[in-house]
């Protein structure tokens, strides 16, 4: 009943797209697909001032997210409930992740976990960890 519309589009573009999708499955290259992918998907980046982690965790009550930093390891855990399927209704497609999840990220040594900030908007959890003040090289005097 639901399938992608092929009729009006360039057949070659569709073939390219199918090939790319297949490749993504075979390679396990990152995509937001629920199947065989870890949930939530995570992107990370860094600047000279901070390390930023983005977890794509849509449809979750931010209060129920458990974000912890312990010994340089960041853990994001929580639960996403399956959509309620009423009686006499049919579930045709079921791709979205449901259940408990937990992802762990090892942080670089030079971040300050005590002043980390976390925000949740549009289904993305953004954790920003400032880097420690640059440690100046010190000369040790010989007595």
């Amino acid at each position, binding site marked *: 009943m639901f399938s*992608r519309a092929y009729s009006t589009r360039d057949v070659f*573009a569709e073939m390219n797209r199918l090939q790319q999708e297949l490749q993504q499955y075979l390679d396990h290259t990152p995509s937001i697909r629920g199947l065989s992918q870890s949930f939530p998907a995570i992107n990370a980046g860094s600047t000279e001032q901070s390390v930023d982690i983005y977890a794509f965790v849509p449809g979750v009550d931010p209060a129920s997210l458990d974000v912890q930093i312990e010994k340089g390891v960041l853990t994001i855990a929580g639960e996403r409930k399956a959509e309620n399927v009423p009686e*006499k209704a049919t579930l045709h497609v079921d791709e979205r992740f449901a259940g408990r999840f937990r992802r762990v990220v090892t942080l670089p040594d030079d971040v300050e976990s005590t002043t980390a900030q976390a925000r949740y908007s549009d289904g993305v959890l953004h954790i920003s960890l400032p880097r420690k003040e640059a440690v100046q090289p010190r000369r040790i005097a010989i007595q």
Partner: protein
Amino acid sequence: MSEQTVKTIAAAREATTLLPAVDVIEDASGITLFADMPGVPRDKFDLQVGNDTLTLEGEVSLDMPTQMKATHAEVTLARYRRVFTLSKELDTGKVSAELNHGVLKVRIPKAEHVQPRKVSITVH
């Protein structure tokens, strides 16, 4: 631009999109679709209903510091797109959508004449 160029651009755009994961639930009065599209703000959604297709599109817009270097990326594209073919009994004029923390919920009711109606039996 020639027609061919337009087609090539459209094809290139098509090839560089994420496929959002969806759940589709059908009940007696219509279909409810949930699509995971995290990172897309409300104004970057494009939901189009044609005669027989439903197109979901959205552009990811993250709050990123300038000069940030990506060190690890699992979401490597910034646009979601997915097209569904609708069947005749769905009432495309009455599609409604709501957004909840990056999950788009689309409700497509069935046309009234195909909704089940209880026929009462009169006893004489």
